C-alpha cells in the first residue's frame, strides 16, 4: 500500500482527571456556556418571524400539497439570538487574535467592505434585472476586472468562479479548450508534490492524468525533473507561486519557457498572490492562467469556510476561451454577455448568474482603500512579518529551508525529535495559549510541517508576543514537559475530539428519539 508517513492520533486518550474541568450542574463553565442543538431546545410550533395571516384562498398546487410534517423546529427572536451568540463564542476568529494558518491568508477584514456590500443598490439587485437597471453593478465588475488585469499584467479575466478550486477548473478548462481548438489532445497535467490538494483534484475533474513533480533540496520545483517529464502529451503545469513552502520559484521564467517549448500551458495557483501583489506581475513571469482568491489576497471574510471568489486571469492565448458570462463596456454603457458572440469561443458556463458579486464589492473596496501604493506595501509587510517570524524562531524551531521566505515561514518537526511531542501536540498546546494553530502536516514534502502565515495586518507587538509564546512552548517540549502537550488543549470549549469514532460511525444529522412504544418493542 501507499504508506502514510505522517500518521497522527485521531482519537484522544480519554482523560482520567478532568481537573479544572470538573462538572458543573448546568454543563456551562462560566462564560463558556453549554448550548444544546436547536432540535433539543426549540418548540416545534414556535416561530421568530411574525407574518400576516394567510387569506386561506384555494390553492393552485395541482394536488401536490405536502402531507407530512417536516420536523423543523422554531425559536423566537430572543432565543435564537442567544443560541447563535453562545455558539459564536466557541469559535476562534481573526478579530480575536493572530490566525497563522499558512496558505489561508487570515488577514483583517475591514468593515467598510461589509457596509458597502450591504448598500441596497448592490445587495438588493436581482441577477436577471434588465442591464439598464444594473449599470452601476456591471461597472463595478468591469472596474474590478481592470484592477485584476492591471495587477497581474494579464489581458483577460473570468469573473464567475465561486472560489479558488473553481477558478482552477476554469483555468484548466480554458487550457483544454485552447488545446482542442488547435487539434492537440494532451493527456497529462504536471503538479508538484507540494501542491494544494485542489490542483490534482481539478486536473482529474478536467479529465487529465496527474504526474507528480518532485521538489529539490531547496523546496522548489526540480527543474531537471520537470523538463524530463515535459513532453507532447503534457497539457499544463500547475504551479503555486510563491509555492506552498512559502518560497518564490526562482527558476519560474525558465520553467515557463520550458513549458511553452513543450507546447503546454502554464497554470499558476494564485493562492499566495498576497506575497507579491504590487511587486511582481504574474504576466511578466510567463504565466498563462492564474486564479486569484479574493477571500485571501483581497480580504473578503472567510466566514467559517466560505463564500470565496476565484476570478481567473488569462494570457492572450487563452483569452478567447473565457467562459460565460462576462461584462463588456460599449458606447451606450455596460452589457452582460450571456451567450457566445463574435470571435469569442467560451468553453461554457461554470456558475449560475454572474459570479460572487458580494465578494467583488468587498474586494474592490479593499483594493481602492489600499491603492497601488498600499497594495505594494501589503506584499512587503506580509513578507517582512513572515521573515521576522522565521528569523526569530529559527534557533528554537527547525526551519525546513534556508530563507528568506515570502509570506509564510515553514518549519518541520526536527526540533521535536526525541521529545515525544508531535506537530499535532505542539499545535494543540498553542490553543491553550490563546492562538489558533498554524497549518499542520502541509505541505506534504516536509515531515510534520508547521506553516506559519502571519499576514501584513499583524503589528510588531502582536508578532513579538506570538514569537515569545512559541519559544516558551518549544523550550517546554525540549525540557520534557510532554504531559502538557499531550493533554492540550485543556482550556478550550472542547478538548481533543474523537475523529476516529466520528468517521467509523458517522452521525451527520440530528434525529428525533424513537417513540417510547418503538423503543419498548
Amino acid at each position, binding site marked *: 500500500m501507499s504508506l502514510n508517513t505522517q500518521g497522527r492520533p485521531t482519537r484522544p486518550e*480519554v482523560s482520567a482527571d478532568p481537573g479544572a474541568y470538573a462538572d458543573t450542574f448546568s454543563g456551562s463553565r462560566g462564560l463558556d456556556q453549554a448550548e444544546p*442543538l*436547536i432540535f433539543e431546545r*426549540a418548540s416545534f410550533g414556535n416561530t421568530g*418571524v411574525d*407574518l400576516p395571516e394567510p387569506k386561506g*384562498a384555494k390553492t393552485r398546487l395541482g394536488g*401536490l400539497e405536502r402531507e407530512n410534517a*417536516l420536523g*423543523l423546529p422554531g*425559536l423566537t427572536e430572543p432565543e435564537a439570538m442567544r443560541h*447563535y451568540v453562545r455558539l*459564536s463564542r466557541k469559535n*476562534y476568529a*481573526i*478579530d480575536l487574535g493572530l490566525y497563522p*494558518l499558512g496558505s489561508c491568508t487570515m488577514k483583517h*477584514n475591514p468593515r467598510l467592505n*461589509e457596509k*458597502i456590500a450591504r448598500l441596497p*443598490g*448592490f445587495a438588493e439587485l436581482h441577477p*436577471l434585472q434588465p442591464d*439598464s*437597471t444594473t449599470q452601476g*453593478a456591471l461597472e463595478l465588475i468591469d472596474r474590478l476586472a481592470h484592477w485584476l488585469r492591471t495587477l497581474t499584467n494579464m489581458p483577460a479575466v473570468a469573473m464567475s468562479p*465561486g*472560489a479558488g478550486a473553481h477558478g482552477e477548473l476554469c483555468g484548466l478548462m480554458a487550457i483544454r479548450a485552447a488545446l482542442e481548438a488547435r487539434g492537440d489532445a494532451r493527456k497529462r497535467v504536471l503538479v508538484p508534490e507540494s501542491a*494544494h490538494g*485542489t490542483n490534482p*483534484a481539478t486536473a482529474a475533474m478536467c479529465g487529465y492524468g496527474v504526474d507528480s513533480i518532485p521538489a529539490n533540496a531547496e523546496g522548489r520545483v526540480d527543474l531537471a525533473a520537470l523538463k524530463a517529464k515535459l513532453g507532447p502529451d503534457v497539457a499544463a503545469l500547475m504551479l503555486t507561486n510563491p509555492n506552498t513552502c512559502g518560497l*518564490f520559484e*526562482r527558476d519560474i521564467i525558465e520553467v515557463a519557457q520550458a513549458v511553452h517549448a513543450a507546447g503546454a500551458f502554464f497554470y499558476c495557483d494564485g493562492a499566495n498572490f498576497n506575497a*507579491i501583489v504590487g511587486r511582481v506581475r504574474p504576466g511578466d513571469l510567463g504565466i498563462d492562467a492564474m486564479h486569484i482568491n479574493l477571500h485571501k489576497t483581497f480580504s473578503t471574510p472567510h466566514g*467559517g*469556510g466560505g*463564500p*470565496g471568489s476565484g476570478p481567473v486571469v488569462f494570457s492572450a492565448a487563452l483569452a478567447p476561451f473565457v467562459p460565460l458570462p462576462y461584462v463588456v463596456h460599449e458606447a451606450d454603457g455596460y452589457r452582460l454577455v*450571456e451567450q457566445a458572440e463574435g470571435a469569442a469561443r467560451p468553453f*461554457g458556463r461554470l*456558475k*449560475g448568474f454572474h459570479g*460572487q458579486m458580494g465578494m467583488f*464589492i468587498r474586494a*474592490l473596496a479593499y483594493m481602492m482603500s489600499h491603492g497601488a501604493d*498600499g*497594495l505594494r506595501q501589503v506584499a512587503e509587510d506580509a*513578507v517582512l512579518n513572515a521573515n521576522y517570524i522565521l528569523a*526569530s524562531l529559527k534557533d528554537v524551531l527547525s526551519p525546513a529551508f534556508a530563507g*528568506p521566505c*515570502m509570506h509564510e515561514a515553514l518549519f518541520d518537526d526536527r526540533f521535536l525529535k526525541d521529545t515525544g511531542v508531535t506537530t499535532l501536540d505542539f499545535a494543540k498546546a498553542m*490553543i491553550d495559549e490563546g492562538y489558533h494553530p498554524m497549518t499542520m502536516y502541509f505541505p506534504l514534502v516536509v515531515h510534520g510541517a508547521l506553516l506559519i502565515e502571519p499576514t501584513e*495586518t499583524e503589528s*510588531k507587538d502582536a508578532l513579538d508576543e506570538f514569537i515569545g509564546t512559541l519559544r516558551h512552548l518549544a523550550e517546554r517540549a525540549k525540557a520534557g514537559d510532554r504531559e502538557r502537550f499531550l493533554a492540550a488543549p485543556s482550556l478550550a470549549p472542547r478538548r*481533543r*475530539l474523537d*475523529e476516529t469514532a*466520528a468517521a467509523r460511525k458517522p*452521525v*451527520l444529522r440530528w434525529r428525533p428519539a424513537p417513540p417510547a412504544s418503538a423503543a419498548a418493542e
Partner: protein
Amino acid sequence: MRYLPLTPDDRAAMLAAIGVRSIDDLFEDVPAAARLKDTVDLPDHMTELEVERALSKLAGKNVPAGSVPFFVGAGAYRHHIPSTVDHLIQRSEFLTAYTPYQPEISQGTLQTLFEFQTQVAMLTGMGVANASMYDGSTACAEAVLMAARVTRRKKAVLAGSLHPHYAAVARTTAKYQDIEFAASKPDLDGLSGLKELIDGETACVVVQTPDVFGRLHDLGEIAAAAHEKGALLIAVFTEPVAFGLVKNPGEMGADIAVGEGQSIGVGLNFGGPYVGLFACKDDRAFIRNMPGRLAGETVDADGRRGYVLTLSTREQHIRREKATSNICTNSGLCALAFTIHMTLLGEAGLTRLARLNHEAACALQDRLAGVPGVKPATGAFFNEFTLRLPKPAAGVVDALAARGVLGGVPASRLYPGAGLDDLLIVAATETNTEADMAAFETALREVLR
C-alpha cells in the same frame, strides 16, 4: 494606511533583526526582470470616506428591488430577511473564522453546520445533507457527477425545464468526464418526452420542481421510471420556500436533492454569493460519494459531545486526484444565514411564509390574466408562473422597467432562439403589496396597449 500596523521604525527594526538591509533583499528570489520598480498603473490609496463615496455612487446607478414594484425570479427570489440574521452573521467569531479545521476552537461553526445539515435534510425530505456548495447550479453539476460514480454509468438525462444555467453548468463541469447528456425540450407540456430518454445506461434523471417556468411537478412517476432502469432521480429546486407547502423531493422518491438556498437568509446580491444545498439518501455508498464537507457528531477527551469535520478522505486535501470533487471553500457564511433564518421561521413560520407566497402569486396571476392579450401558460405553480404575451417579452420587460416596474424575466433571455419569445416568467413573494401588483397590472396594460 489604516489596515497596516507596521510603522517605519518597526520595519527598520525588523529588517535589522532579520539581518538584511532592505525589503528588496527579501525579494531576491524574484528574477530581476520581473521585479517592478514602481507601483502599477492604478490609483493610490483612498480614505474610508472617499471609497464609500465612490462606491455609493456606483450603487446609486442601480435600481434595487426594494425601490420599485418587483417581480423577478427565475432562480433567485426576493424575500424579507429578519434583521437578526444579518446581525448574527456579522459576529466576528462567525464572519472572520476560517474553515473549522481545529474543532476544539470551532464548535460554533461546527454545531451550526450540523444543525444546517439537519435542517436541509428535513426540508428536502432526504436522509443526509452536506455543509453546502457554491450555489444551486454547482450543486446540481456535482450531483450529476456523483450519480455517475454511484451507478458507474455515464449518461445524464435533463428535463428541458431545468434552469438553463444549471443545465449549462452541469454540461460544462462534466464535459471531460465522458458523460453524455440528453435533454427534453424546454416546452410547457409537463415533463413530456423525458421518460423516453431514460435507458439502461442512464445514471440520473435531473428534474426541477418548481421548474424554471414556475410549474410544479409530481416526480413520483419519473422517479419510478428512473428506478426501473437503475437510474437515480436528482430533484432540483431554486425556491426552497416551496417546501413549506408542497411535497419535497424525498416525499416524491428523489435519490439526490440539490438546489439553491438563497431564498432563505441570503438575499439577492446580484447573483452571488448564494448557498448550494446538497442532500441525498442515507446510504453508505451515497455518502461516501458525496462532494464537499460534512460535519459529524462525536465526543471529546472528557466525554463531552462535540462536532468535527468528518469523512474527509472523500475530499481533495486528502484524496487529491481521486477526490469526489475539487471543492474546498464552500459557502459557509451563507449556510449560516440560511440556518439562522430557518431557525427563526421554524416549520410554523415556513408554512405560513409559503402560503403567503402562493397567495400572492395567485392574486397576481388573476390580475395579469385580466390584461388583454395575456394568457397564463402554467397550470400548477407555487410563487412563480409564466404568461404568454401578445408580443415578445424581452421588449415588454424593458418597457416595464422604463415605467419603474421590474416585471419578471423573458424566457428568451434564458432560452434564446428556442421559440419562447412570447413567454414572461413572473414571481411574487410575501414582499409584494397590493399596490405593487396594481402598479404592475397598470404598467402592463400600458405597455401592451
